[in-house]
């Protein structure tokens, strides 16, 4: 069962019904014993009546006379009593007509007992002594059983009604009790990085739910303050780091531009400037990632056809690949629109291309395939390098995990793919790594949901012209 309300209502209903059932069972037992006790009293009264009819002189009477006397009274009450008189060790003296010749069985040692007599049914028997006779006087149990059956029927109906009523009441009550919880859930659901200052209304009464609301609000307070701290840290860190960096750069550059340095010093200053640029890039990347983690980064997504973006990218990519002696192929199929921020997507593609170029052997082919169809924009960047092992593939999107480079000269910051992942996820997409087409190399694929795609008819799905690394168009 999904809702606590339903569960609690069912528990409540079951408990209430079970309690009632126990009461009914107790009532049943009590009523039954009372009714049977009544029968015992009745049997006793019947015996007293027989005793009265027999009179005080019964010992002097003959058997037929005794039988006659008893029959007078028992026939009169034949619907009520079954009577069996016998002398122990001798045999029966009298049997009432309604016994039709049957004995009332004896249960030794019991004065009042219940027996089943075939053809008559259940009887409540009282065994009494009127020396020298043993008188068994019995009353049918049937009326008692009828009453009990009716009692059971009424109880079952009442239990059913109780079950339904208590579940309904339970549902109503839990709804009432859980209402503040529902309010909490809705509020907590609304609280995101952009409205962290919203709080759950705390009920005025001081109960467990109010405590819970207070606790949750305290948690949101802490969350908000750490979130604000992250944001402030990002701003402070950039401020604190970039001012000294600016000064170093300005002074180093001034030395270089002013001239008059010995060649060795000149070289040293140039290295400094390059390392400053590198340091700055790493700071920017770390700040980017920390802001992306904190969801403090908002992209300016605009609906656009990725074709134009890819075309411009392919132009630069071909030039870069050629410079490194790699072949570059590019293909884009399909039309439609995707919510993108071009600047960041270009960054992703350029990072992937840079990795591919550094992984490629001389003359290796780097391909970029983009397909826009079925509501999805998929771009795959593939190289023919050494590739990475499946175990490494799992980790390459983590921070500071570097891809193996055949040249060993290239040392990226180790943040490129982590940034790609962040950017793609900020576009609502995902990024994955697989082995290249023929088991060689690495293939990184990006998938971003498209706003709309124009499904081209089959025959029109001809690949767009490939741009070869030389920049010429191949048809």
């Amino acid at each position, binding site marked *: 069962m999904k809702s606590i309300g339903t569960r609690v209502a069912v528990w409540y209903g079951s408990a209430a019904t079970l309690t009632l059932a126990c009461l009914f069972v107790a009532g049943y037992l009590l009523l039954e014993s009372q009714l049977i006790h009544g029968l015992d009293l009745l049997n006793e009264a019947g015996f007293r009546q027989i005793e009265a009819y027999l009179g005080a002189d019964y010992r002097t009477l003959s058997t037929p006379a005794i039988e006659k006397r008893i029959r007078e009274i028992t026939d009169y009450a034949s619907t009520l009593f079954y009577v069996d008189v016998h002398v122990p060790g001798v045999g029966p003296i009298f049997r009432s007509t309604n016994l039709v010749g049957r004995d009332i069985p004896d249960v030794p040692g019991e004065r009042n007992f219940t027996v089943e007599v075939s053809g008559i049914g259940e009887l409540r028997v009282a065994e009494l002594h009127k020396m020298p006779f043993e008188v068994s006087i019995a009353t049918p149990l049937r009326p008692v059983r009828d009453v009990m059956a009716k009692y059971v029927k009424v109880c079952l109906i009442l239990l059913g009604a109780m079950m339904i009523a208590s579940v309904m009441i339970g549902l109503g009550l839990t709804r009432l009790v859980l209402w503040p919880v529902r309010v909490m859930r809705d509020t907590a659901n609304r609280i995101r990085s952009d409205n962290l200052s919203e709080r759950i209304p705390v009920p005025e009464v001081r109960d467990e739910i109010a405590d819970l609301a207070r606790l949750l609000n305290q948690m949101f307070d802490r969350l908000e303050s750490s979130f604000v701290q992250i944001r402030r840290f990002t701003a402070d860190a950039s401020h604190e780091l970039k001012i000294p960096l600016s000064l170093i750069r300005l002074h180093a550059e001034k030395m270089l531009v002013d001239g008059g340095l010995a060649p060795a010093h000149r070289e040293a200053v140039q290295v400094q400037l390059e390392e400053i640029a590198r340091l700055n890039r790493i700071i920017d990347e770390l700040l980017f990632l920390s802001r992306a983690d904190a969801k403090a980064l908002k992209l300016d997504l605009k609906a656009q056809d990725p074709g134009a973006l890819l075309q411009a990218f392919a132009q630069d990519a071909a030039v870069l690949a050629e410079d490194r002696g790699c072949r570059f192929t590019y293909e884009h199929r399909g039309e439609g629109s995707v919510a993108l921020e071009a600047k960041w997507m270009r960054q992703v593609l350029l*990072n992937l291309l840079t990795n591919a170029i550094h992984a490629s052997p001389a003359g290796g082919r780097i391909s970029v395939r983009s397909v826009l169809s079925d509501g999805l924009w998929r771009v795959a960047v593939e190289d023919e390098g050494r590739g990475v092992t499946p175990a490494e593939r799992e980790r390459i999107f983590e921070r500071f995990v570097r891809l193996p480079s055949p040249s060993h000269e290239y040392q990226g910051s180790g943040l490129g793919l982590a940034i790609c992942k962040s950017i793609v996820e900020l576009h609502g997409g995902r990024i994955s790594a697989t082995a290249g087409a023929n088991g060689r190399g690495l293939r990184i694929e990006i998938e971003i949901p498209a706003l709309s795609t124009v499904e081209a008819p089959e025959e029109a799905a001809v690949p767009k012209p490939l741009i070869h690394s030389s920049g010429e168009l191949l048809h």
Partner: protein
Amino acid sequence: MKILIIEDERRLGEFLQKALSECRYTATWVRTRKEAADALAETPYDVIVLDLSLPDGDGLELLRQWRGSGFNEPVLILSARDSLEDRVKGLDLGADDYLPKPFSLEELLARVRSLVRRQSTAKHTLLEHAGIRLDLLGHTVQVNGKPVDLTSREYALLEIFMQNHGRILPRTLITDKIWASSYDVDTNLLDVYMSRLRAKLEGISGRPLFKTVRGVGYQLV
């Protein structure tokens, strides 16, 4: 040419004031919003260099107030906040240019010159230097009278150099103009384009035209 520098960081402010003075600008340096307002009330400036984090308030807020009161001097924002948001916000509020820290002095100078130029002179349609002739209307390039075929990126690159010939152009300034991104990508894309452009132009002109200033940028000599 008068420049007002609003920068709260002492060492940076001093450096900028000194460096700009050396380039024959009259540079005034103030450290707070209040001092800036006083300085502006006293005398007009040609360019204002504004740092965003000031001790007595946000630089963006100051800019909004200025623009709201009809003040239209060109403003160049300096910011340690790397975020794109600030850049967009700053330009929306009427800043004319934006430079993230750490920046290069050459880049600051180039941007200041470009702000001054935007104000004073009309754009040329024909640029000529060192035997290169660049026709902005016809999108054609000639070196020593011979037409040269350039790709769109090479053309855009050459145009920036022709408009700033003789000056060192920092890498970030160039990438910002061509790819609308000052984020220094871990690629040598600019170097590759530069070597292609060099090969095409210097092959005809027969003498070196571009100078590489390592760690800074390039210069059309």
